[in-house]
């Protein structure tokens, strides 16, 4: 019983900010002590939706976040696999190195990397921004995949190999299906983290790449609540859609230990 109350309280805590965004995006001239806004007006919100700069930023954010989650899985899968399934000297150290970015502020890495990326010609490119997003993203991907590799039974792979499956076949038909829930969770996590990056995108993008958080932050610096709320709504909508799409994987234990029929 009390468990259910906690769930409801948590749901409320998560939903209230979204409700506030909705109110602020459409309420105009709402000042204390008025109980109700002077008027409701969708003009500002619709203007943001139609704004070519916002549309471009939305598209670039989408490309970057999708690219980052794919790259993160490509790097994260082998890393997590080796770190969890093998024992070797310095394993703990390497694990630690993977988590270093979570404690080093991204401004510090960003400023240093910007100079390196400028020399390499990567600054101001989509690829450059994707690569730099991998820094905050990879620890979470490795952690998520690593925790399911820890409970991963490799005998299924051996079984398939014994029956004559090629390594590629084993990877696609045995490993991936068994790890699917945690691959999805890790990919979504990578998408979410990339989608909300500001400092690194600003530094490496150098204004050539404009992402949604950059528009959001510049609006926030002005403090116009209707504008901030409108942009926030546009910012969170794809995230809510994405979470809705993968919801069935989020609750399940991401082990893949029990193969489905």
């Amino acid at each position, binding site marked *: 019983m009390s468990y259910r109350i906690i769930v409801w309280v948590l749901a409320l805590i998560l939903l209230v900010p979204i409700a506030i965004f909705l109110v602020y995006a459409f309420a*105009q*001239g709402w*000042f*204390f*002590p008025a109980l109700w806004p*002077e008027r409701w007006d969708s003009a*500002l919100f619709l203007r943001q939706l139609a704004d070519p*700069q916002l549309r471009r930023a939305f598209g670039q954010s989408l490309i970057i976040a999708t*690219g980052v989650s794919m*790259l993160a899985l*490509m*790097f994260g*899968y*082998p890393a997590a*696999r*080796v770190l969890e399934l093998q024992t070797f000297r310095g394993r703990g150290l390497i694990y630690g190195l993977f988590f270093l970015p979570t404690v080093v502020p991204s401004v510090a890495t960003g*400023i240093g990397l*910007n*100079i*390196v990326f*400028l*020399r390499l*010609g990567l*600054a*101001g*490119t*989509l*690829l*450059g921004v*994707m690569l730099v997003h991998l820094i905050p993203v990879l620890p979470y991907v490795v952690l998520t995949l690593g925790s399911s590799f820890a409970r991963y039974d490799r005998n299924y792979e051996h079984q398939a*190999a014994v029956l004559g499956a090629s*390594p*590629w076949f*084993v*990877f696609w038909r045995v490993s991936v299906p068994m790890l699917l829930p945690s691959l999805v969770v890790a990919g979504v996590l990578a998408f979410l983290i990339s989608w909300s990056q500001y400092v690194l995108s*600003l*530094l490496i993008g*150098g*204004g*050539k790449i*404009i992402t949604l958080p*950059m*528009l959001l*932050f*510049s*609006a*926030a*610096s*002005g*403090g*116009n*609540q*209707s*504008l901030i709320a409108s942009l926030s709504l546009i910012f969170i909508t794809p995230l809510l859609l994405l979470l809705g799409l993968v919801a069935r994987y989020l609750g399940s234990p991401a082990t893949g230990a029990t193969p489905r029929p």
Partner: protein
Amino acid sequence: MHTRKRIWNLAVMLGLLSLIIASCGSNAATPTSAPSSTSLDLNNWASIEQAANGQTVNWYIWGGSDSINRFVDEFYGKALKERYNITLNRVPMADTVDVVNQLLSEKEAGKTTGAVDLIWINGENFASLKQANLLRANWGQSLPNSNYVNWANPAVNLDFGEPVESLESPWSSAQFQFIYDSAKLQASELPRSYAALKDYACANPGKVSYIAPGPGAFQGTRFVKQALFEVSGGAEQWLGKFNQQLWDQWSPKLWDYFNQLEACLWREGSTYPKTENELHSLFANGEVDFSITQAIAGAGSLIKENLVPASARAFVFDDNMIGDFNYVAIPSTAPNPAAALVLANLILDPELQAAQILPENGFGLGYGIDPTKVSDPALAAKLTNAAQQLGDAATPASDLAKSLRSDIAAEYQSLIEQGWDANVLRK
């Protein structure tokens, strides 16, 4: 056996990865438009317009105001396209210091062609870029429309005390003003000096606040600086070069004033709003009686943005209200300097200057040019008319002129910010 499988797996992954990176790289690294020759001839303006034809100008500009963003797109973006076939790429920044850092990084990386063509700038950011030698030189006073600029005015040729030296060109002017709600207060009840403001605050405890001085909150610093003018008996003595002795003499009196004021402030001065919009919000919700603006349209643009009630009006003290100019500058690494020059010149166009002060157009800052220098009678009439159409929400022009003071040497800026922090906030 197993290791071989693993290696095979890894090799395939890495192979795929490098393919993707290679293909992305070739797509993303499309060469930026070659920098047009740095030897643009400002005496031959037609050649510059020709060089700018077809270019994209990357204007890095503070993006916190929806109405300013729209003004820029509507009035400059369209005119650039129609008149010069230039595309405006407005790059919104949360803080102009980010552009300064970007340019410093580009310099350190040895880039000769960067990403930034034009920056909206003044004060500390201008001083940093000037000092780092990162700005294009010798153009501000050579633009065709710079004839309309009163370069003899120290408020124009000094940017926070730093000589402009043709490194930037003005866009607009601003002057410190307060905002009150005419539905709650009569004009006769308004304080007209810092002394009167303290009396007002202590008669109405908690109804006054101001913006905390600090980097990025020049309005707060200016509020304190103006008080310094008043407690020291006048602004004139502060003009000219930085004077440590003068500062040492008067700063204790300044902190006395603010410490006496503090007890009567909103939340007894335990916390202060950090931005103009935080203060607008406190004012709009009736928590405090006054807000602060720099716009020549007074409360006009803010009313239009629904940030303050429609009954909001602007006013000034009788003296010591600091006014200044803000500018555009071109980095020496600008990829499209010709287009940047055309835009900087367009900004000074008298018709667009007349449009920028009107609150309904969303910008609302004052003239960058001197209207008396416009000889064409039709254009001059436009400028005069616009100035008369500012409406009730603006401070009367005569009040602004009477109280106008120019800003002082940049050294005082950080002394005030650090001093306020140590002597007022943390006391």
